[in-house]
């Protein structure tokens, strides 16, 4: 793989993951379980979209094809998106018959798993050879650390809460755990950028991520799920059925009114 292409793919993986998770969390706006959490999720979503803007702007410049962040966000179809699959899963979780409304435990546990990954990632990328990426990482680290704190607090509250909240947090954790494999599976893209000192091998983040997550699970009296062999492929552009719906909602305005500005 050419170094230039790997670099671009890597930025899209990170930028698209932030964007898609930000859009997902934004769905809680007006639907949060309590007002404070409604605001909290909207704030986390805003930060993630902010990260995505920086990363996609950088990706567009690197691509050099005259596109910008908006064109990357609004005019690519699902197959061109490079986000991790865990980010696109619906807020309602994965059980059948629960597709209409969100399950807050599912969103919280996903944030715990993903934000803990981001914290590890941004720490390492703060010293990337790509100065622009290093700047974005140093900034995002502050925000992701705060998101992680929020997710960890609520995971502990749910896990060590009532029978119902414990059961729902555990169910969410069991459902989400297999999707974390993709975060740590390296392919030619990560190998290329790691060799160039631009990115890191995700496998090297796993131990610290695991220690971080398990510390929270223990405090929350939640059981660490057994390892799974599921390996999702969102970062290569092969997604679940959920991403198309998310993109349709996110992109409809820009596509219905091309060139529209605020």
């Amino acid at each position, binding site marked *: 793989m050419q170094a230039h292409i790997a670099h671009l793919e890597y930025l899209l993986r990170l930028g698209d993951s932030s964007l898609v998770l930000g859009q997902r969390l934004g769905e809680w706006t007006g639907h949060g379980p309590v007002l*404070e*959490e409604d*605001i*909290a999720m*909207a*704030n*986390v979503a*805003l*930060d*993630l*979209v*902010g*990260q995505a*803007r*920086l990363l996609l702007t950088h990706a567009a410049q690197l691509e050099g094809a005259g596109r910008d962040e908006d064109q990357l966000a609004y005019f690519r179809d699902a197959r061109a998106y490079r986000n991790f699959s865990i980010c696109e899963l619906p807020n309602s979780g994965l059980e059948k018959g629960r597709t209409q409304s969100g399950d807050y435990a599912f969103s919280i546990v996903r944030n715990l798993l993903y934000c803990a990954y981001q914290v590890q990632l941004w*720490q390492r990328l703060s010293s990337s050879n790509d*100065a*622009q990426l*290093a*700047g*974005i990482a*140093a*900034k*995002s*680290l*502050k*925000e992701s*650390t*705060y998101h*992680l*704190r*929020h997710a*960890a*607090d609520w995971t*502990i509250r749910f896990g060590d809460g009532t029978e119902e909240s414990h059961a729902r947090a555990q169910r969410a954790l069991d459902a989400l755990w297999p999707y974390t494999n993709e975060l740590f599976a390296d392919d030619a893209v990560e190998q290329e950028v790691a060799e160039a000192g631009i990115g890191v091998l995700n496998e090297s983040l796993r131990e*610290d991520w695991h*220690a*971080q997550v398990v*510390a*929270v699970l223990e*405090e929350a009296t939640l059981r660490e799920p057994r390892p799974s062999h599921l390996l999702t492929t969102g970062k290569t552009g092969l997604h679940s059925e959920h991403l198309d719906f998310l993109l349709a909602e996110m992109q409809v305005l820009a596509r219905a009114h091309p060139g529209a500005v605020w």
Partner: protein
Amino acid sequence: MSAVIEHNADAVWALLAGVLDPEIPVLSICDLGIVREVRMGEQVEVVITPTYAGCPAMHVIEQSVREALYAGGYAGARVSTTLTPAWTTDWITAAGRAKLQAYGIAPPGAAHANTAQVIHFKRATPQAVPACPQCGSTHTELLSQFGSTACKALYRCVECREPFDYFKPY
């Protein structure tokens, strides 16, 4: 009429000190510490750094800077953005902190220079609590880690019972 413009950086900084944050309109962008540099070339260039990456106020701020400089006689001034080093609430000036306090927002405590390493979560972790901007009591409690804007959290004073915003250390 030909306006004679004092073409120096101090004059530009003075103009910038009049540009207010749209979300916290008692704070100037200089108080906030987001103006990083003023470059005096053929055209003036002001370098700013974003607070939060997704903060929607940044666009308004960029525009306000251009307008203020235009009004001050610097037509065609450029505003550019830098990410490095990342903004921190430690850059909020002492004057800015006093203004926040007077406005009813508790100013941020010290940000940790390095947020790295494994964070340990314990329910009873004692954390530095902000003092109530109304009555000064430190007997306050967190209501929500997130507040009305990206940069604030919501607290309540247990003494005077007033809820208040806390500018989060960043």
